[in-house]
């Protein structure tokens, strides 16, 4: 969907064609869903958060000025929904907000012809997912917006309402912490046979996957 098509769809929705919103959802659901998935760590919660974010966007669509990209505007709403859910979950320990392993997805190797590499890849993905959840939500949000959604620092600053410098330092801290998590090994290569490899390899190589 080009930006013009997007603008046209928004105009149609605003002029009363609610069905036109579906094209906007379809165009942005991947970015929104994956942002929510990495923020919340669970597919069910990500689905709920994505739907809530799109619905909120629908209700306040007339507030979208077009100053920023529509995707950036959606990510801001999504981030807010996620932070909201996380905060509520924090206050109610019995909440369903838990990290699930997304087992089915993980089991699909994406490297052809090299089982060892596929396994490493799968382990790495799982470790990154777990590592992300060890970050503070606001730091996780900044990092995801940068590395998953591909926003610029300035765009992230607009999403979060922070200074660009603060955004940068948050992202750097988040990267450092996530890297340290991966390097720490214990949680990283906990999938069984590959544990031995960490002992054989020097610490400096542990991050290389």
């Amino acid at each position: 969907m080009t930006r013009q098509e997007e603008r046209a769809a928004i105009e149609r929705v605003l002029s009363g064609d609610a069905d036109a919103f579906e094209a906007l959802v379809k165009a942005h659901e991947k970015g929104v869903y994956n942002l929510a998935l990495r923020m919340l760590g669970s597919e069910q919660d990500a689905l709920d958060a994505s739907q809530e974010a799109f619905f909120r966007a629908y209700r306040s669509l007339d507030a979208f000025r077009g100053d920023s990209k529509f995707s950036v505007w959606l990510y801001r709403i999504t981030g807010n929904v996620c932070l909201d859910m996380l905060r509520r979950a924090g206050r109610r320990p019995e909440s369903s907000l838990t990290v699930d392993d997304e087992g089915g997805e993980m089991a699909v190797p994406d490297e052809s012809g090299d089982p060892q590499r596929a396994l490493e890849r799968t382990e790495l993905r799982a470790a990154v997912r777990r590592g992300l959840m060890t970050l503070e939500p606001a730091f996780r949000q900044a990092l995801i917006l940068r590395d998953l959604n591909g926003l610029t620092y300035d765009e992230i600053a607009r999403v979060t309402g922070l200074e660009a410098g603060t955004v940068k330092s948050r992202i750097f801290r988040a990267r450092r912490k996530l890297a340290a998590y991966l390097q720490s090994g214990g949680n990283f290569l906990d999938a069984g046979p590959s544990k031995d490899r960490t002992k054989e390899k020097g610490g400096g190589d542990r991050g290389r996957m």
Partner: protein
Amino acid sequence: MAGCERYEEMIWALLDGDLAPEQEAALRAHMDGCPDCRALYEAAAAAAGVLREDLAEPPAALAEGVMAQVAAYEAERGEPRPVRPVKRLRRWLPVAAAACLAVVIVGVALPRLKMGSARSGAAADTAAPQAAPYAMDEDGGEAAARSEDMPETVSLTEGMMDAVVESAEAEENFASDGEGALSGSAADDAAPMEPAAGAVGYTLCDPDGNTVAVISDREALAGLLRGETIAAGPEDFAPLYALTLDGTAYVLADDGAGGLVWWIEGDDAVTLSPAPLSELLALIE
């Protein structure tokens, strides 16, 4: 990694694709001899790669669910929307004069007012002759009665809202043309403030129209709205403020994490990041 700090900065820049070639060469030369930096880079690069590539396909239920919600919402909206009383708001919300453009700030505003103005260096006691008890329509009596429960009620007048909006616009102008002076700013007629660059006066009034404080700039007001303490309250979010615009009551509370939570009467909370004022205005304009 003592002594490696500058290389770490370069590692992040490299990950962002934002490192000059000669710097990249220097970094790579350093990493050849520094296992710590190399390991950091490799781990961080691996993580970034996963974030970029490990994307799930959204389930079909996502769009279906959204469109079902939209359809239900539109069906409901076809009829006149009733004003829904909300229990947790009723206790404290001095609601909703229908045509009221006043913005009412409720609650523990005063301590933060002082904080906000002190932060901005503004003289909080500079009186500004801004009018404005919040306007009342036929619901006003009830609203007033309810607001009696509140220890302090402060209203931001219509002029203030304009000031906020104009301030936001002025910032854009400032950014684009480099001129600090504002023309047509609400500061001109709302408050006798120094016309410093980007400065707008915000007059906070109590319900009787008495000036409580003048805040010199938007940042200070945003800081005020952010709040730094949470009012005591048994609810999920202790409400700090109510904004009433065009008869719709908006409720603001501290989210406890440096941001604001706000919701329209009867709706769920929406979390705003810090400095949300312009966003809020954009949504409620």
